């Protein structure tokens, strides 16, 4: 057994310790306390509504939200708008439709079934308007961003269900604009961000204190804006998360009961084998 442990230690050392020299580089985003984290986590309706306001007033000018429809705003598990409110929001947008009888495309107010219209007609137009950098679509961005958790944290995450790397990163990015350190060569047209891989980001600092007016008394700070819009984006990426976790709990309880019953059934069936070998 001694030799076994020794050999195991050698293998583990080769596998994990030797490469430790390569660690480091970009700082990890700080952990944010999210209402939607954990097995019973729920979205904070007021936060989603505030986040949607930030998206509309700030992000929307460049970033599309093409997979979301206006109807989603009124669906259960979402920001909790009523259907009438969602309809009013939809009508504030102009959506292209057509062709009409004359064969021409035309614009009309949005309907519940419409997707959020894109700010640019195509990717190249978006690049041309943004100095060559393409503002990514935001529909699933909260799931499309992450950072390396590293050994052994990625193993603990299975048990703790920590999976908010994407939201944490987005909040950190919003807060991460600073002056470049001495000697950092910032390419023209880009901005220094502490958390962006490579640090040179095309997007200028998007948020500033007091930029968006909240009417529910929440603090009007960059940090609060960042958290609110990130929660909204998490919902946009995973609109059925609440239902998923709720069904999950029911399924787990069912399976536990079933497993318990099956265990005693198994014991009963095998009892005669153990009694009369």
């Amino acid at each position, binding site marked *: 057994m001694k030799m076994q442990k020794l050999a195991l230690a050698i*293998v583990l050392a080769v596998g994990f310790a030797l490469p430790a020299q390569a660690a480091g580089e970009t700082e990890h985003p700080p952990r944010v306390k999210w209402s939607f984290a954990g097995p019973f986590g729920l979205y904070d309706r007021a936060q989603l509504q505030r986040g949607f306001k930030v998206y509309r007033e700030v992000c929307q000018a460049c970033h599309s939200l093409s997979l979301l429809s206006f109807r989603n705003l009124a669906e259960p598990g979402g920001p909790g708008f009523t259907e009438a409110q969602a309809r009013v929001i939809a009508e504030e947008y102009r959506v292209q439709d057509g062709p009409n009888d004359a064969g021409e495309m035309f614009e009309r107010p949005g309907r519940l079934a419409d997707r959020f219209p894109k700010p640019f007609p195509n990717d190249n137009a978006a690049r041309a308007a943004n100095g060559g950098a393409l503002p990514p679509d935001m529909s699933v961005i909260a799931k499309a961003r992450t950072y390396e958790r590293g050994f052994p944290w990625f193993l603990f995450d299975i048990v703790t269900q920590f999976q908010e790397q994407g939201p944490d990163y987005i909040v950190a990015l919003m807060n991460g604009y600073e002056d470049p350190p001495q000697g950092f060569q910032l390419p023209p047209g880009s901005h220094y961000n502490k958390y962006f891989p490579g640090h040179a980001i095309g997007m200028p600092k998007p948020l500033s204190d007091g930029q968006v007016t909240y009417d529910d008394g929440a603090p009007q700070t960059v940090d609060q804006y960042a958290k609110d819009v990130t929660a909204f984006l998490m919902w946009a990426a995973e609109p059925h998360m609440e239902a998923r976790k709720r069904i999950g709990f029911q399924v*787990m309880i069912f399976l536990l009961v079933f497993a318990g019953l099956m265990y005693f059934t198994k014991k009963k069936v095998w009892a005669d084998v153990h009694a009369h070998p």
Partner: protein
Amino acid sequence: MSGHSTYQPQHPFMKWMERRLPIAGLVYSSFIAYPTPRNLNYWWTFGGILTVMLAAQIITGVVLAMHYTPHVDFAFNSIEGIMRDVNYGRLLRYLHSNGASMFFIAVYVHIARGMYYGSYKEPREVLWILGVIIYLLMMATGFMGYVLPWGQMSYWGAVVITNLFSAFPGVGEAIVTWLWGGFAVGNPTLNRFFSLHYLLPFVIAGVVVLHVWALHVVGQNNPTGVEPKTDKDTVAFTPYATVKDAFFLICFFLLYGWFVFYIPNYLGHADNYIPANPAVTPAHIVPEWYYLPFYAILRAIPDKLMGVLALGGSILILAFLPWLDTSKVRSARYRPLYRQFFWIFIATVVGLGYLGSKPPEGGYVIAARILTIYYFAHFLIVLPLLGLFEKTKPLPNSISESVLKDGEPIGASAPAKG
């Protein structure tokens, strides 16, 4: 599937049927009366778990295919449509994507159990090789399935893996163009991968039938590695094995549910939520976790053709395991040295898996090279030599003897618990 059926139909219809198509008798002899070693532990339940997982993947896959569009312009959004709009679509999609991982977890346990208890040894060589074929088919199926969402990792995974074939001198480029159906990975590639991803699970199911058939010809191995001798050594498959399998299957479902309902994206890559973009390579291309040990072997070798050959060899070598292991004793319970090397081998594969997820630089490459050498040495040096030099412990005379004395010394030495 083997031996004579003791099935005696009572009902006149069943009698009529049995003379024409004896399917009830086949089921009876294969899955009810079939004698099962009485000492099988829970590691033996994974065969049944795998069968259920294959069925689960086929069923969820067929219904997902009703909503999926295999076209480069629509694939990504059709998956998001499944996630957002299709009734229970998000559940089915997460069941399918996490189901693939659960399938591989189960198959790795199943393979490791076979290695620990020597289940590949005479007369179970063909049974084992059929298993290796199933594993290869699973890898192909899993790879093509991962391409279908057409995210960044889908696309670049397809580019890297199909390019493996370009390593072959002379014909490599022609093979790759033929696989792609174009001059780059594109719509024809996605379409044929979808077609094959739909087909291969049914091929797997066919080979599984052969695998089970071969199993029923030679009988199950057991933790002692001693063949059943009398009726005392076995129990009927139903209800004994069935109820045990069912219990552990439900426990396995608890793990499956944990991933599906609480951390459904843990085993995937964030990059795959970015639509495929042929103009931008992700900074760090990583395959699905179940390929990582082999990916590490591929990257450990600085020469392209040799890397590809090592990758292929690391899987194919499994098929030769029955002949590389020269020991007469099956179970690691009675092989004190092999037992230690077995765990070192497991640690090596886990270590390679970790290194496969890391960028190929500095210490990671050196570590991967050391572990790659050990991986092959385990099969080509350790196993052949162990059979010659290892002093094994005395085997019990029969399964029932070992069961009765469980917890007490067998022969002269202490019993080995797996």
